[in-house]
C-alpha cells in the first residue's frame, strides 16, 4: 500500500515538478545577479518556501530593506495563505505530526493539487498529501539551486516561462469546474478578484479581493448549502 501511495503522490506532483523547476530557476538567476549565492538559494527555498515572496525578497535583499518593511511586505504578499489553511482544517484534522509540515508547505501550487481533498482509495490520505507536499518542495529547492548555479551561464530565451504557473491554475480551474455542482464560488473568485484588480491596482488588490470573496460566499451561503447533499467520503475513483 505504501509503495502505491508513493507512486500515486509522485504522479500527482509531476505537473508541479515542471513548473517549480522552471520558476525556481527564475528565482535563482536574479538572486545570483544581486550577489547571493548557492547557500542563500538553498536556505531561502528551504525555510521560506514561497514562490512569489521569494521573488519579492530578492528586491528586499538587494535594497537592504528594513525588517519592518520586510514584515509588512510579507504580510501583504502572503495573506492569501490564510485561506489555504482554512480550506484544509477539516481535511488535515487527523494528520498528527504530519500536520506541522502539511501546514508549512501549503504553497499556491501544493494547495491547488490538494484542495479538492481527493486521493486514491488505496492510499493513506495524510501520507499521500505529505508526500505530494514533500516532493513539491524538493522540486522547488532543486530549481532554485540549479537556477542559481547555471541560469546565468546558459544562453536561452526564457521569456514567457513564468506562464507555467498560470497554466497549472487554469487546469485546476477546469477540473474543479467539471466536478463542481455549483459554479457560483468559482465565478465569485474570478469576478471579485478582477474587479478589485481594476479598482485597487496590482500592488494592493489581494486583500480587498479576499474580503469581497468571503463576504459574497456568505451572502450566497443558503443557496449553496440548500442545493448540496451532505458531504460524503471523498474518494477519487479516477486514480
Amino acid at each position: 500500500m505504501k509503495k502505491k501511495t508513493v507512486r500515486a503522490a509522485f504522479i500527482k506532483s509531476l505537473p508541479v515538478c515542471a513548473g517549480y523547476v522552471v520558476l525556481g530557476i527564475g528565482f535563482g538567476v536574479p538572486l545570483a545577479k544581486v550577489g547571493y549565492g548557492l547557500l542563500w538559494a538553498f536556505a531561502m527555498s528551504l525555510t521560506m518556501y514561497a514562490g512569489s515572496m521569494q521573488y519579492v525578497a530578492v528586491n528586499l535583499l538587494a535594497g537592504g530593506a528594513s525588517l519592518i518593511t520586510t514584515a509588512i511586505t510579507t504580510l501583504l504578499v502572503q495573506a492569501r495563505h490564510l485561506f489555504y489553511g482554512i480550506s484544509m482544517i477539516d481535511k488535515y484534522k487527523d494528520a498528527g505530526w504530519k500536520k506541522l509540515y502539511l501546514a508549512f508547505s501549503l504553497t499556491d501550487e501544493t494547495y491547488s493539487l490538494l484542495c479538492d481533498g481527493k486521493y486514491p482509495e488505496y492510499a493513506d490520505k495524510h501520507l499521500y498529501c505529505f508526500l505530494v507536499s514533500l516532493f513539491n518542495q524538493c522540486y522547488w529547492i532543486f530549481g532554485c539551486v540549479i537556477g542559481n548555479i547555471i541560469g546565468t551561464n546558459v544562453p536561452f530565451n526564457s521569456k514567457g516561462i513564468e506562464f507555467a504557473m498560470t497554466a497549472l491554475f487554469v487546469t485546476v480551474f477546469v477540473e474543479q469546474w467539471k466536478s463542481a455542482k455549483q459554479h457560483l464560488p468559482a465565478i465569485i473568485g474570478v469576478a471579485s478578484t478582477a474587479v478589485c484588480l481594476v479598482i485597487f491596482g496590482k500592488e494592493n488588490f489581494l486583500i480587498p479581493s479576499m474580503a469581497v470573496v468571503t463576504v459574497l460566499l456568505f451572502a450566497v451561503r443558503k443557496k449553496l448549502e440548500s442545493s448540496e447533499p451532505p458531504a460524503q467520503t471523498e474518494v477519487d475513483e479516477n486514480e
Partner: protein
Amino acid sequence: MSREQIIHSVLIVAVSAVITALLRGLPFVIFSANKTPKFVLFLGKYLPFAVIGMLVVYCLKDASFTAMPFALPELIAIAAVALIHLWKRNTLLSVAGGTVFYMLLVQFVFK
C-alpha cells in the same frame, strides 16, 4: 558582502520565513479540528473553488490590458490550456503545452 550586510540579510530571510509560516499555520492553530465552527467548515468547503479563480486572475496582474498587446498572449494561451485540458484531461500535457505555446507567442508573434 560585509558582516553587517550578511546579518541583516539573514534577518530579512528569517522575518519573511516566520511570517509566511505563521500565516500558513494560523488557521490550524485557531480552529482546532473537533470544534471548528460551522462557518469555517463552510468556507473550507467552498473557498477552494473561489481561490483557484482568484489565483488565475492574480497571474494576470502584470498583463497589459489597456495597451498593446491587450493581454492577448495571456488570453489566447489560457484558452489553449483550457481546450487542451478538456480534450485530454492530462495536467502535465496541458501545463507543458500551454507554456511552450505562450513562450512562442511572446517571443515570436507579439514581440
